[in-house]
């Protein structure tokens, strides 16, 4: 599933590059529908590498 308009919270620089507290707190699917908390969690688990890239992108 592709997501858009996402929001990542709790990116703490102290534990770079793990960012173990960071989490996807908001996102919408391709149709603009808001993902539930369970869906957010699942997306993060299923797309671990992509999520790490997104964090780094936010920091740039």
């Amino acid at each position, binding site marked *: 599933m592709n997501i858009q*308009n996402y929001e990542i919270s709790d990116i703490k620089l102290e534990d770079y590059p793990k960012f173990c*507290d960071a989490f996807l707190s908001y996102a919408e699917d391709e149709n603009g529908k808001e993902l539930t908390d369970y869906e957010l*969690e699942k997306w993060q688990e299923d797309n671990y590498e992509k999520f790490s890239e997104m964090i780094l992108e936010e920091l740039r």
Partner: protein
Amino acid sequence: MKDRPNYYAILTSEVRYDNSLTPNAKLLYAEITALCNMNGKCTAPTSYFTRLYQVSRVSVQKWLKSLDDLGYIKRVVKYKQGSKEILARYITIVNKTSIKKLTDNTNINITNNNITYSNTIKKRKEKFLEEVYAFNDIDKSTLDDFIDYWIEKNPTGKKMKFEMQKTFDINLRLKRWNRNNFNKNKSTSKIDYQISEYLKGKELL
């Protein structure tokens, strides 16, 4: 049942009547006070709360973040000196009233060091403003009216009106805005204003 502390929980009036907090976040706060009463500080990991309340990890993280952001709790992470190895993590309850008293009489600044980088609505709004103001051949008041209209947030506050359109080409929208004189409704009659509002509504459909 073993995981559930028998100690009483505290829900302060500040937290209880804070409209920015969800009821679940308030419940979590009470749970944390119970754990703090038992151990002095709350060392329970996020997974403990997810199991306890049978909710997703993200939900617990959101509640913790909201409590932290509003200054009701403090999430502490202790690192081994000179490394990124975590020695301890715990949550403490912050007594906001006593902090206020302290800061009222001194120059102590309490800051939240937890940085949140996100693709927030604020960021998206700034981008939108930048793109609209790039049309410098159109007078500023028109652009301002256009912006005011399209940045209105939805009831959840997560999206702006322009983001809720199936398509949104600023150039085309601005042209139509000018053509329909949407921004001139302030100086026109009530009927003109109502027609203009009707057209705006129609455009949204």
